[in-house]
């Protein structure tokens, strides 16, 4: 079996969107195109876990087929890597699940297989997770309230790259912010195999007023499809690449 590429958008935000379309609906579109949307909501130290604005977080991830988590900023690093990995496993599991249903019949799932066989299937899932290529587009909310949290976000992203580059498969990252200086979205870091450049890019970020989460997600989705178009243009002969 050829190893495939997993595509993810990681949205890091601390509040409710207040401009443009409903982010959950854009997330659903992303999912349709094979891109998983994960969302992390950051809390201030004095906030309780069921804040109004953060209810959106779960809704976006659910329609984006991804994982969501609400955390205090001190736990951000570990959460970012956990959410990313969980989503990868989930995507692969979903894929294996569909294959299984085709083989075993419609109503059969992993729980209908005896525990011993289940182990063998999970071994395959783990193996794919380790060896698949991964593309993550990080979408960072840089609205005014995020200002104090940006250094923590930077550390978390560096930490994420440590985790992912420890895998066998290849990784590519890119970072976008919203709102940008002039537009809703702005590129911070172009597709690159590691995050080491982030040290120099991040301090320059300024924070703006509005939170156009929906439009930002749409832009992220567009960046993915643009990238893949370019790639299929350049590598027409190797177009047998499978994706989950």
């Amino acid at each position, binding site marked *: 079996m050829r190893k495939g590429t997993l595509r993810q958008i990681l949205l890091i935000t601390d509040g409710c969107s207040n401009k443009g379309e409903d982010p959950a609906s854009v997330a659903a579109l992303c999912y349709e195109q094979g891109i998983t949307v994960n969302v992390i909501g950051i809390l201030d130290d004095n906030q309780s876990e069921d804040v109004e604005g953060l209810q959106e977080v779960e809704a976006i991830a659910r329609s984006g087929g991804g994982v969501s988590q609400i955390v205090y900023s001190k736990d951000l690093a570990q959460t970012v890597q956990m959410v990313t990995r969980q989503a990868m496993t989930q995507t692969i599991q979903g894929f294996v699940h569909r294959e299984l249903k085709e083989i075993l019949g419609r109503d059969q799932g992993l729980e209908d297989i005896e*525990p011993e066989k289940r182990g063998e299937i*999970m071994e395959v899932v783990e193996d794919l997770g380790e060896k698949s290529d991964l593309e993550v587009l990080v979408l960072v909310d840089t609205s005014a309230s995020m200002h104090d949290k940006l250094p923590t976000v930077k550390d978390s992203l560096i930490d994420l790259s*440590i985790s992912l*580059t*420890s895998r*066998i498969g290849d990784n590519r990252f890119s970072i976008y912010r919203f709102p940008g200086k002039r537009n809703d979205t702005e590129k911070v870091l172009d597709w690159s195999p590691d995050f080491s450049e982030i040290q120099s890019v991040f301090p320059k970020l300024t924070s703006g007023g509005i939170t156009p989460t929906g439009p930002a997600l749409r832009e992220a989705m567009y960046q993915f499809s643009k990238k893949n178009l370019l790639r299929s243009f350049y590598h027409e002969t190797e177009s047998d690449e499978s994706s989950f």
Partner: protein
Amino acid sequence: MKQKAMNLLSNLPPGTVITGKWHHKTYRIKKKLGSGAVGSVYLCDAAGQEVALKISDKSASLTVEVNVLTSLKQVQGSLGPYLLDVDDWVTRNGKVYSFYVMEYVRGIPFRTFIKQHGSSWIGVFMLQLLDDLTRLHQSGWIFGDLKLDNLIVMTNPPRLRWVDVGGTTQKGRAIKEYTEFYDRGYWQLGTRRAEESYDLFALTMVFLHLFYPNEFERREQPLQQLYRRIDQVKALAPYRKILKKAISGKYQTSTEMRRELFHIVSQNTRTSRSRRSRKKQDNLRHAPFVIETLGITIIALGYYLLSLFL
């Protein structure tokens, strides 16, 4: 919904009977032993035998742990708790949860043991831990989530054992599960690739955590910071050199570290023994009477032997 399932599974009352769907074995819950990211562990009664049962709503993650336990079964000796059963539990409302059953390792927490019995045990346990790690590493696995919470001391004779193998990862892959304080990635001192040196870093942090119960956070120049922390613990003085080498990734294999530790430990006992014998000599010098008696005996013996030959 998900939250509800987790609450239910982490609060199963004593007396609850869990019956397996596939193998039909029955377990009666006695008390809860703990909860983690993947599930909750209960002490159970299985036909008169005490066992530990881990149950979770995350069937996939639990299956991954079972795979590790199954692989460890094939490693010589007892690494980690012995796996006894794997099954599903169907609740009264038709919900299905996966569980597995393992040997119940009875012991006391590492820190409690050191508090009660003194730090002379440090070297012994470090050696035991390195022995186990060496065997694990040689069979192609890295422990990953090595931490104080995962270690207990079985008494009579005291033996350090690990209880949770959930983070165990095949060599060369990315570490599956880790705890920040013990993770060299967090300290910016290496990758999260499953290598022997990853476990050796965590092992050093285990012994630091033993003496810094409140942990501490990373500052500028983490390597110097950890060196200082090692230097400040008197009980770790004999092991400073090797702990620092482990922290800075100087050991490629656990065998190397074990060899150097063994050297230190055996030298330690030798110096203390020779000190003791010197003390004995001092006693002799202060007791001329003893020397006299000894001298006379030797002379007498000499004459006796002479008389035998003649």
